C-alpha cells in the first residue's frame, strides 16, 4: 500500500467516524435553546461537522494531488517494519487481554520474555532477571507504596497473604 492510498483510506475512515460522532451528538439537543444558548449536543455536533469538512478538504487535496503526502508513492509501512511494529503492537494487545485473565503479574513476565528474548535477542539470564525483577518492583512501587491495586484475574488468591503482610 502506498502512502497515497493510506491517505485516502484514513480520510474516509475519519470522515465516517466524524459522521458517527455527529449522529451520536444528536441524542441531546443540537440547536439553540431560547435564553439558554446552545444545547448539550451543539458543541460536539458542530465540532464533528468541522472534522467532516476537514476530511473533505483532505480528500479534495488528494484528488488534486496537492501536498507531499497525497503525491507520495512510497510504501506506507515497509514490510520489515510492518513485521516489527505488528509484533510489538500485537504483543501489547495480547498482554492487556491477559491482564483480566491471568492478572498483571502473569502477563507482564510473558511480555518481558517475548520482548527481551525474542525481539531483543538478549540472553536468557538477563531475560529471566528482568521478567522477575520488573514485576517485583512494580508490586512494591504501585501496590505497596502507592496503594494502587492492579488487576490480578485468577491469580488474586495468591496475593491475599502478601496483602496481609504488606498492606
Amino acid at each position, binding site marked *: 500500500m502506498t502512502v497515497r492510498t493510506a491517505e485516502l483510506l484514513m480520510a474516509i475512515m475519519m470522515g465516517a467516524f466524524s459522521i458517527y460522532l455527529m449522529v451520536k451528538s444528536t441524542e441531546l439537543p443540537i440547536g439553540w435553546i431560547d435564553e439558554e444558548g446552545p444545547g448539550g449536543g451543539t458543541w460536539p455536533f458542530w*465540532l464533528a461537522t468541522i472534522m467532516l469538512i*476537514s476530511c473533505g478538504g483532505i480528500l479534495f487535496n488528494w484528488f488534486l494531488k496537492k501536498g507531499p503526502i497525497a503525491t507520495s508513492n512510497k510504501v506506507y509501512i515497509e514490510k520489515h517494519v510492518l513485521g516489527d511494529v505488528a509484533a510489538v503492537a500485537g504483543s501489547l494487545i495480547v498482554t492487556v487481554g491477559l491482564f483480566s485473565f491471568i492478572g498483571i503479574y502473569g502477563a507482564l513476565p510473558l511480555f518481558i520474555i517475548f520482548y527481551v528474548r525474542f525481539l531483543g535477542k538478549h540472553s536468557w539470564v538477563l531475560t529471566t532477571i528482568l521478567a522477575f525483577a520488573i514485576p517485583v518492583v512494580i508490586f512494591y512501587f504501585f501496590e505497596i507504596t502507592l496503594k494502587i491495586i492492579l488487576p490480578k484475574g485468577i491469580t488474586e488468591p495468591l496475593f491475599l497473604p502478601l496483602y496481609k503482610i504488606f498492606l
Partner: protein
Amino acid sequence: MFEILGLLGQGFLVVFEPQNLLLIVGGCTLGLFIGAMPGLGSVNGVAILLPLTFLVPPTGAIIFLAAIYYGAMYGGAISSIMLGIPGASTAVATTFDGRPLAKQGMADKALIGAAVASFVGGSISVVLFTFFAPPLAHVALVFGAPEEFALMMLAFATFVGLGGDDIFKTLFSICIGLVLSAVGFDIISGEPRLVLWDITGFLHGVNFLVLAIGIYGIGEMLWTVEEHALGGGKSMLSEATVSVARTLAALRELVKTWKATVMGSFLGYFVGILPAAGATPGSLMAYGIAKQISKEPEKFGEGAIEGVCAPEAANNAASTGSMLPMLTLGIPGSPTTAILLGGMVIWGLEPGPRLFVDHSEFVWGLIASLYAANLFTLLINIAFIPVFIKVLKTPFTILAPVIFILCLIGGYAPTQDMHDVWLMIVFGIVGYLMRKLDYPLAPAVLAIVLGPLAEPAMRQSLIISEGSFMIFFERVYAGPIMIAALILLFLPLFKKVYDRIRKPQPQAE
C-alpha cells in the same frame, strides 16, 4: 509587611528542623519518581500519600505533601524530556522542545534547563504570594464563567501555528480533541453525552492521560520501533552524555533564556491563581508567548531551550498560585489542591478567608515549605541527572518493554478501569498510523485539556446573558482578555494579508 516577613521567617524555622528536613528530602525524591511515571502526577502522589500523613503532625504532613507536590511537578518534566511522554497535563508543553533536545543528545541541557526554570518559577511565585496574596484573592473571587471562557480563548490563541502545514489536518486534530473532551457527561443539561457505542467505560469521559499516553507513549514508541527496526539491542532513545563542563556550558546558555523564564513565572503565577484554570493552561500559554517573543521562533518545536524553560517556570509558579484560591476561598485551582483541601479538612483546618487570620502559622509554614521543597527539588534533580542519562543509554530492546509496561499501568492507575487501557492502545495505534500521514497530534492533546474548561464556561455565560455573546466583552476582566485573544488569534492572518498587499508574491505553481 514586616509582620508577614516575621511569620514567613517563623515558617522557615519550622521547616529547617531536622525531622522536617528529612521529610522534605524524602518527599521530593518520592515525588520525583511518581511524577516521572507516565500517568502518575502530583494528584496521585498527594492523594495516595495523604493517609500516610496521619503518622506525623499536621505541620510535618503539609511539608511532606508540599515536597511531593514539587517533586512530582518536576518529575513530569523528566518523562516529558526523556521519553516524550507527558506524565501529567501540566508537562505537555515541556515535551514540544524537551523531546527534540533529548533526541539531539542534549537531554542533560533540557533537564538542567527545566530544573533551573522550575526553581526560578517557584521562587518568583513564592515572593508574589508573600506580598500580593489578598488583592489577588479578590481577582480570583470575581473571576466568573465569562472570564474563564475568555481566558481559554486566550490560551487557544497563543497556540495558533502550533500545528503542521496542512490546515485541514490541524483543524481535524483540534476538533477531534475537543469532541473527545465532550464525551461522558454534559454538566449543563445533566445528561450522559456521546457515550460511544454505548460502552459504559465512556461514561467517565476520555481522560487526558489516556490520549496523551496513547499518542506520546505507545504511538511514539511504535514510531521509534520503526525508525530503529528494533536495532538488535543497540539503538537508544537518545544519545547523551553528562559532564561538569557540559553542565556549566548549559548553565551559561540558560542565562540567555531569562526573559522566557521570568515571563513564564509571572504568567504561570497569575493564571494559576484563577480558580479552575490551574497549571496546564498557564504552561501552554507561557510556551506560546515564549515562541512569539523569541527572536528565533522557527527554532521552537525543534529543540529551543526557551521552549522548555518557559512552560516549566510557568507550571511551577502556577502550582504555588493555585494554593491561593485554595487557602483563601476554599476553591481548588487544580486537582492536586483539591486533594490538599481534603487533607486540610482531615487536619481540622477550615480553608477560607479566615484561614490567614486564624491559622497564619499553618499558611506561612506551607509557603516556607513550598520554598524549601523548591530548593531541594533543584538540588536532588541536578544530583540525579547523571542517573537519568544512564537510563537513556540502556539498549532500546530493554528500555522499550519497561516503558510500555509503565504506559499500560499509567493508563490503568488514574481510573482503575481496563477500558482506559484498551482505549489507550487504540489511540496509540491509530495515532501512529495518522502520524505517518503527517497529521499533527499535539493540537488534539491540547484540545482535550482545554475543551472541558472552555465549553461549560461558555454555556454558563450564555445562560446568564440569556444567549447574548456581548457578555464576553462587557465585563471588566472578560472584555480585555477576550479582545487580546481575538487580536492574537487573527494577528497571523492580518500579517499575511498585509504582506500580500505590500509585496504581491509570485504564485508558487
